[in-house]
């Protein structure tokens, strides 16, 4: 099968993720009108391996499984980033806006960017949102504002979609800390998910990580209480500027 040059391809669509976020290879059209998914964005040229029947393509678009795009010129090593609007806003509010413009389709935001930039933003957004969760937990522990805890659980949901697997240990430790406050009976199920998602993770190591993370956040809350620091959560609600989020007790 003959390969096609990247410059001859047009990005016409993307799959919509089941959840709120995905980094995909694009669906492209070549000069012969063939539609297919790119299977290797790093390749020098593209082989139209899995061609898509135009009727099938139309059905996917009509069914909402795929989104039509404006026809961007294809580019080697570029990927499609698809994110639900609330996730993009959460990342922006956490101080990690993506360094690109979005194409807006309903509640979805789509961009076609260099793969390395997409991965770097995902990592940065994950870190920033994990820091926000910690800030919210500290806020709760220091001042017992129930809303801060609710916000922490909501932010955890956002960061779960956005963070990469290397950040999962941190994510699940924070689930452990938050659920200990919200509803400890939910923790065993979440711990089981963590064990299936983090390679070679042992339950005892996870529990120790949660304990250490909880202790660090308790310490930060205690410091905050002693200093009589005003609630930055309260500042946020009142629209006052807040300091950038910090990482408390970042694991070595």
């Amino acid at each position: 099968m003959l390969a096609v040059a990247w410059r001859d391809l047009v990005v016409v669509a993307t799959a919509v993720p089941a959840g709120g976020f995905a980094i995909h290879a694009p669906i492209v059209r070549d000069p012969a009108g063939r539609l297919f998914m790119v299977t290797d964005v790093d390749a020098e040229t593209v082989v139209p391996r899995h061609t898509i029947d135009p009727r099938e393509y139309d059905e996917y678009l009509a069914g909402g499984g795929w989104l039509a795009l404006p026809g961007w010129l294809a580019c080697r090593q570029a990927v499609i980033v698809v994110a639900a609007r609330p996730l993009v806003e959460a990342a922006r509010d956490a101080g990690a806006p993506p360094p690109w413009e979005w194409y807006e389709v309903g509640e979805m935001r789509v961009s076609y960017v260099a793969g390395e930039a997409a991965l770097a933003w995902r990592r940065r957004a994950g870190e920033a949102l994990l820091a926000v969760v910690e800030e919210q937990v500290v806020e709760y522990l220091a001042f017992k504002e129930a809303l801060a805890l609710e916000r922490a659980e909501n932010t955890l949901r956002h960061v779960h979609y956005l963070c990469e697997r290397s950040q999962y240990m941190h994510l699940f430790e924070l689930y452990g800390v938050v659920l200990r406050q919200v509803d400890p009976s939910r923790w065993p199920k979440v711990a089981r998910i963590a064990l299936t998602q983090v390679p070679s993770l042992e339950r005892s190591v996870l529990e120790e990580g949660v304990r250490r993370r909880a202790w660090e956040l308790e310490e930060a809350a205690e410091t905050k209480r002693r200093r009589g620091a005003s609630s930055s959560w309260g500042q946020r609600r009142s629209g006052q500027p807040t300091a950038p989020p910090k990482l408390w007790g970042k694991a070595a």
Partner: protein
Amino acid sequence: MLDGLPEHVPVEVTPFGLGGMLCTKTHAGPHTCVAPVAHDDEVEQVDFTARSTWPADSWRARAAEYIGLYFGAAPERYFLPDDQGRPQRPDPAGIFLDDRTSDWRAWTLEVRVLAEVNLFDAIAEGRVIAWALDEATETELQVRSIAGEPWTLFEQLSELRSQRVMAPRFSFQSLALIDDTCVRDACRSLA
């Protein structure tokens, strides 16, 4: 990916993908159809497909024979992408050496399961060789589960950690290369 099916589950197998018969017959260059048969009249296509369909009780033996005959002493070639895995010997219908046929699906075994497969049974019986999920779908299942929804099948799959093909590096080709050892061994014994 499952290792075998229960005895009672009916299957039919062809040494090509049936989708390759759906050809517009108007293309000029290389395409994904099973030419030249896909360009014949429908009656001839139906007849060819019927004669090329292997029944459930003998398909494994026939598959081994097929790969042994057409891929010779290098059965690994069967798993090569695109037309790099093109059989080295001509077949009676002239598919393998037809210039219009440049797609691996024209010589890939297609096993069609004619009944529902109970994945819970497959897991319980230890017949799952490998599994993978789209990363976004898996994350969605995790988030829903944490929010309180049951995760049943996903939970059982998740606990098969050693069989998991980690996303996002999964591809059909990489999966095909690590499994189906029984077919590969059978091929080697015939070659």
